[in-house]
């Protein structure tokens, strides 16, 4: 255990947001972990408020802790002020539940949700006193494992992990805990336990560089889901009951990694969801309940579910919300029903400015869709609309960028007209957020190069100039950060020493603009005679071997090739829920599209516990 007295008197009074580091939240696991047969430190390489918003982390925490013999505790990346204090006082990374040093856990499991958290992984290992590279670890060191969406190309970080879990974590984590406990009972060595864990399906061993097929939960409705959330004292980014209504999305946007690697669409039944909602609302006391998925308006019974939940919880002052809106009137109607009293802003993601470009990326949204959705939104009383676009997409021309400007202005003008007609004093406003395309593994765009930094900067300036209009505000993502993100996303093991060097130089929290230090990253690459554009701006041929070829995420290479070729011809591919099967390869055996209707009849008392 770390010295709690020292923390309380000499450290926590001197850092910002000390409640990030003290635990004791409602529903956090209590009690000792010394008697546990296997212990896991769930480590999130970002700050507490971000990590506590991530549903995958809550699911894993719940699964491990629902078994009396196991213990999962949490650690987040300390903010630089806390890191400095910990180093100054010799306090190692510790768990929030029992203040146990990270080194004393059997397993340490990192969530890789975003490439720009990689530096924090190494910083956390260093604070834990665990050697950064797996081949430097020995008896007594925790077995360090990674999972999460970025594990679909683990190579840039591979040398730092003993093992990597690919795909859905629900079943894999239980297998890992069980095998670890067994290994300890058998008196197996650390190396022996690592090789036993490497036998588990969906587990990749960087030292063996084995081929691996992702784990996938065939039936989400009977998969475990927490009935209690840890309720933070600090306001988390998403501080509410999140009800995962489905996993996967088959709309098929060609740039979207989540839309590919979580296929097929697997819904939960409404009876199960209502019961989970009730348990979570009562055990948390949250004032908001939100339907979570990649595209919740696509949940087949969204209307029924929303109205059921809204009529049940609305009178108690609990808002029901839908975070991911589609660009259509159906979504606006849902949002209108949900947000009776909280008119903040609405967000739409047309992603591209012209129909040609939206066809290339397979974003099934037309200008008419957007304009009618925006009209509905303005008429329903929203006066601030946020639009998401991307620049630097494959085959982009300046006409497509012009399209972003003109579409945004059209939406603004529409808002003004509606505001005027309604005699509203408040002016309509449109906020446009423009990110730069980052090619991601396991997508049809994985072969395409990201635009060079110069190109992206030029396009940003160009677009900015076209958008200087009162009522329109534009924000851009930092090109240097997107460039680094692309390098890590498409990178290989040569990047590992660069990341290690950058952490040595002081890089941390690269996803936070005020912490991002592009100069130090530049130096880290230069020190190793490398350049991020070797990966970010490399155009891969359709037949080239890719650094993530050995990771099978379900969708087949043939499908991705086909989709890349259709993109080049500007041909769209319809959603397999509405048209015929597009042959993506994600369905096999038990794994298939499962819609809520399947589960309608079964009103389960056990709430989906297997």
């Amino acid at each position, binding site marked *: 255990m770390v010295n709690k*007295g020292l923390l*309380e*008197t000499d450290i*926590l*009074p001197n850092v910002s947001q*000390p*409640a990030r*580091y*003290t635990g*004791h*939240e*409602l529903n956090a696991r*209590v009690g000792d972990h010394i008697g546990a047969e296997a212990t896991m430190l769930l480590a999130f390489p970002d700050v507490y408020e971000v990590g506590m918003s991530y549903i995958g982390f809550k699911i894993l925490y719940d699964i491990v802790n629902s078994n009396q013999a196991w213990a999962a505790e949490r650690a987040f990346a300390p903010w630089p002020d806390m890191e400095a204090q910990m180093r100054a006082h010799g306090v190692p990374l510790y768990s929030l539940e029992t203040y146990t040093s990270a080194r004393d856990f059997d397993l340490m499991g990192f969530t890789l949700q975003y490439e720009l958290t990689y530096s924090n992984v190494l910083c956390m290992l260093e604070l834990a006193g665990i050697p950064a590279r797996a081949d430097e670890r020995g008896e007594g060191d925790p077995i360090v494992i990674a999972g999460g969406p970025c594990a679909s190309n683990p190579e840039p970080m591979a040398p730092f992990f003993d093992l990597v879990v690919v795909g859905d974590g629900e079943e894999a984590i239980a297998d890992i805990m069980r095998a670890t406990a067994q290994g300890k009972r058998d008196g197996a060595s650390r190396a022996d336990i690592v090789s036993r864990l490497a036998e588990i399906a969906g587990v990749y061993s960087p030292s063996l560089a084995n081929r691996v097929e992702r784990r996938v939960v065939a039936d989400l409705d009977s998969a475990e889901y927490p009935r209690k959330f840890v*309720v933070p*004292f*600090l*306001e988390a980014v998403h501080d509410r009951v999140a009800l995962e209504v489905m996993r996967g999305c088959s709309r098929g946007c060609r740039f979207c990694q989540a839309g590919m690697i979580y296929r097929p669409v697997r819904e939960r039944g409404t009876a199960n969801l209502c019961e989970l909602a009730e348990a979570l609302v*009562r*055990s*948390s*006391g*949250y*004032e908001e309940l939100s339907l979570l998925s990649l595209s919740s308006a696509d949940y087949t019974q969204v209307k029924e579910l929303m109205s059921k939940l809204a009529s049940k919880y609305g009178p*108690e*002052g*609990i808002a029901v919300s839908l975070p991911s809106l589609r660009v259509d009137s159906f979504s606006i109607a849902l949002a209108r029903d949900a947000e009776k*009293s*909280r*008119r903040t802003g609405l967000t739409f993601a047309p992603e591209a400015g012209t129909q040609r470009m939206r066809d290339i990326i397979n974003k099934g949204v037309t200008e008419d869709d957007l304009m009618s959705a925006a009209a509905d939104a303005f008429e329903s009383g929203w006066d601030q609309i946020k639009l998401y676009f991307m620049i630097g997409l494959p085959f982009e021309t300046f006409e497509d960028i012009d399209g972003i400007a003109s579409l945004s202005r059209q939406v603004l003008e529409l808002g003004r007209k509606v505001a005027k007609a309604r005699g509203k004093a408040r002016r309509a406003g449109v906020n446009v957020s423009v990110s730069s395309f980052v090619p991601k593994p396991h997508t049809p765009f994985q072969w395409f190069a990201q635009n060079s930094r110069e190109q992206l900067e030029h396009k940003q300036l160009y677009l900015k100039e076209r958008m200087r209009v009162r009522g329109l505000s534009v924000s851009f993502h930092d090109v240097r950060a997107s460039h680094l993100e692309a390098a890590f996303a498409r990178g290989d093991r040569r990047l590992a020493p660069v990341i290690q060097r950058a952490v040595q130089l002081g890089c941390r929290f690269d996803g936070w603009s005020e912490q991002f230090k592009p100069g130090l990253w530049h130096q880290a690459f230069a020190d190793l005679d490398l350049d991020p554009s070797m990966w970010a701006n490399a155009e891969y041929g359709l037949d080239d071997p890719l650094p993530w070829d050995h990771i099978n995420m379900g969708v087949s290479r043939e499908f991705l090739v086909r989709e890349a070729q259709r993109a080049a011809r500007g041909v769209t591919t319809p959603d397999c829920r509405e048209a015929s099967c597009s042959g993506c390869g994600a369905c096999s055996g038990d794994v298939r599209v499962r819609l809520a209707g399947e589960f309608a009849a079964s009103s389960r008392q056990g709430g989906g516990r297997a």
Partner: protein
Amino acid sequence: MSASMRFRVRLGKGDEMRFVSHLGYMRAFERAVRRARIPVAYSLGYHPHPKISFATALGVGMTSEAEYLDIELNLADSGELSTLEVFELLQAATPQGMPVIAACAAHGKPALASSIEWASYRANVQASIQPDLERAATELLASESAIAEINTKSGRRRADIRPMVRNISWRSGGVLECTLACGGRAHLRPQDLLAHLGLIGACVYRTGLYFTDRESGDLVSPMSVECTDLVMAMGFRPGELTRGS
């Protein structure tokens, strides 16, 4: 009885929550109320808020056995709730570090927050510096004015703190107790008094909040004025939430 009723609640802030901000502490209480399914009344308007008002904020890092709040309930649908019922529902729902110490029905008109004038605190003092501190305290109490550096909402400034110090006394075992101005009209943070006396970085524990009785000038508890049906936690011992060190 009317459909709306006001209760006054006394909470503690234990070690587990000492580094939680006042906002976080309030939010945690609101969520406890929702878990307890107590029919709290909501404000009208676009953003309805539960009608819960805390007496005063407690600085981050401090613990307390005297966090008072008023909560208004809407009993139109649920029917009457006794103080004991409210007390027990809350006690079962609050998180670790937020013990419910007492509850009563509140009838008085003046708002809780604007009536608080004084707060009492306790701090442990190491034996080695206690004599110096005692001397400084005696000197302060004997003087007419004492200019000190203090922290206010608008930053650091120099001010006469003497009128804001009502009392300083000592308990056995090197425990300093003081009663300081608290609230909107005049406010002195205990850390500023302690720093002036020569003690920095002490763990401070709030032991009470008080109104001033207009006639006698005495300090009275927020639960002794126009309050009825007081319920007190069984086995509550003053000082139990403080840290030993």
